[in-house]
């Protein structure tokens, strides 16, 4: 509902601007171009101010990794952020056993690059899809995501709000598909159907060094077909493209998802350079070489170009729809919600029932 409204608004705005320009070409009230100014005003300096402020404040980014055990989730996260941020590298008594239930583990780190600080939280989901009977193994994950939204909502509705609400909402969920080469499996469909509505899912093909280039292309096509025929929308979602430029950029990304990735933390010498790669008897697989695998594309998408967009989509779309859902369910207005003592457990239970969406 909210999305359509904002779309209509923007369309209206565009119409108004067009009318203004058409009606009185010499009397342009809302639109002064830079060339019409007869001096440097300094509006663009606001960008610098913003940049300085955000650098001081730092960013928060919460990323969740979901997939069966052994698909290389921890290694990929370490490779993405070029530091040992995964659960494997951080918990002192990490064991590679398969746990009986799905338990979520969060690990937070503050990493810094060129003066920009980022508080990165990695949420791991060991035990997902590992048992013989995997029915409802996605429920703990859905519950966790909704709980984070609920926490944020509470803070927002508080009378004395903090200036910066601590953001523990999941901004991105990387879903690992095993490189079978065939199609999506029933468990993949079930998971992505349910979670595509509440979080931005980025599917990746894990351990893709077992697929040749042709097999990889065919596999991706089949996956994309399966996703559209089941109505699953993965990030970047088509409906949320704001302008044609973005649409073109995102279309290109959409044509190549899911990315086929290979992860490693070992370096080898190739042609005199030190590269991240996996050394086998038949060659060295260079992780950052686009001809070998699509790790560089994934990293660019997640970190270099769409990091802020992921956060925006989570905040403006997923969180807002959660909020609308909650407020409609409780059927109260804001103040009543704050005054009532609403235990967190009760709140999440009502959210799991898919009422409006």
């Amino acid at each position, binding site marked *: 509902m909210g999305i359509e409204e904002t779309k209509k608004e923007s369309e209206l705005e565009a119409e108004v601007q067009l009318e203004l320009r058409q009606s009185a070409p010499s009397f342009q009230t809302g639109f002064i171009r830079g060339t019409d100014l007869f001096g440097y005003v300094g509006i663009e300096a606001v960008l610098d101010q913003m940049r300085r402020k955000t650098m001081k404040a730092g960013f928060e980014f919460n990323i969740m990794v979901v997939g069966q055990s052994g698909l290389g989730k921890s290694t990929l996260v370490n490779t993405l952020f070029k530091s040992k941020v995964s659960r494997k590298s951080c918990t002192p008594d990490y064991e590679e056993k398969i746990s009986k239930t799905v338990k979520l583990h969060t690990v937070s780190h503050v990493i810094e690059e060129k003066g920009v600080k980022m508080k990165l939280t990695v949420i791991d989901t060991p035990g997902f899809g590992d048992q013989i009977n995997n029915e409802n193994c996605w429920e703990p994950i859905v519950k966790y995501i909704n709980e984070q939204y609920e926490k944020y909502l509470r803070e927002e509705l508080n009378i004395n709000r903090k200036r910066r609400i601590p953001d523990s909402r999941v901004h991105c969920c990387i879903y690992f598909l095993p490189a079978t080469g065939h199609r999506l499996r029933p468990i993949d469909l079930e998971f992505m159907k349910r979670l595509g509505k509440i979080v931005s899912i980025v599917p990746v093909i894990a351990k893709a060094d077992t697929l040749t280039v042709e097999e990889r292309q065919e596999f991706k096509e089949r996956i994309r077909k399966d996703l559209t025929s089941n109505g699953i929308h993965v990030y970047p979602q088509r409906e949320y493209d704001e302008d044609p430029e973005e649409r073109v950029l995102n279309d290109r990304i959409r044509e190549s998802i899911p990315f086929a990735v290979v992860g490693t933390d070992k370096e080898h010498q190739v042609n005199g350079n030190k590269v991240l790669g996996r050394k*086998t008897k038949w060659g060295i697989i260079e992780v950052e070489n686009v001809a070998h695998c699509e790790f560089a594309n994934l990293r660019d998408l997640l970190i270099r170009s769409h990091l802020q967009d992921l956060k925006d989509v989570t905040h403006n779309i997923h969180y807002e729809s959660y909020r609308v859902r909650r407020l409609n369910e409780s059927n109260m207005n804001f103040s009543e919600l704050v005054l009532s003592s609403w235990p967190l457990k009760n709140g999440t239970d009502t959210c799991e029932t898919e009422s409006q969406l």
Partner: protein
Amino acid sequence: MTSNIRYKSRIPVKTEDSTEEKQYVGFATLPNQVHRKSVKKGFDFTLMVAGESGMGKSTLVNSLFLTDLYKDRKLLNAEERINQTVEIIKHTVDIEEKGVKLKLTIVDTPGFGDAVNNNECWKPITDYIDQQFEQYFRDESGLNRKNIQDNRVHCCLYFIPPFGHGLRPVDVEFMKALHEKVNIIPLIAKADCLTPNEIKKLKDRIREEIDKFGIKVYQFPECDSDEDEEFKQLDRELKECTPFAVIGSNTVVEARGQRVRGRLYPWGIVEVENQSHCDFVKLRNMLIRSHMHDLKDVTCDVHYENYRAQCIQEMTSKLAQDNRMESPIPILPLSTPDADTEKLIKMKDEELKRMQEMLNKMQQQMHDKDQ
């Protein structure tokens, strides 16, 4: 002896040779006679492949037997697979090489382990194996035993995904359900996504877990002590290499100036038959060239006999309960038993009781051998 005289024929021989030849009987030619007869009759072998879809089972079977068994296969999409149950599909192929005929049957198990809830997904497979045993049992106990078709599963290749850190719960449960019915050979599938170190770690881990859970996979028979050292060395290497890490391929690529079966990647070419790349050659040699007959023997002598003993025990315990002198061969359709057939039945009854005692003794021996 007649053979002696035949051998001597009409050639005049010296006295020293004649003493040797007097002692030569000639049944050393028996292996040749057996060989000639089996070549005429041909061999049959039933191989089952089990594992999740996408593990490369079909590709490996095609690579092993250099045929294309799966030409018109259609891959189901995920919605169709949600309601799929485990099926059993048989492909039969007649292969001939240098005059030796092999009737190869591949039993495929699509749908295994693919659903969200995989409880008891191995049940159709164990039922199939039991059915084949039961049919053989019936045929063997029947009156016309000339053309018994042996459909018993001689070997089951189980594909373990290389992605995990060892055996998963579904792997353990499957192997435990089948290890007393069929020879299980576990394989690490799609081994081209593992570096040599990772393969070693995974193999050690899997061997540990197989011991821990008490899974009885197929054991290679011990070498005779009089085999030469090279053979013993090969045998030792084979045993240390299990479970085999295999790669299969349907395509032929150009590598090092030759055309080989392999997979072409941007970073190199994987050769299926290169021993330093994967264990495919070891698996093929073991399965086809050296241990095919042993697999059949173990199926006949151990797994089938276990099934049979169990079956007979159940039947006799039922008899003891009913306390009737009825035919212990309940499978023969005896519509109108006349005097002759009744006598026959009574004879068979006593024979079976005697055989059961022998079986009990054999089971005891087998227990001792296992220990």
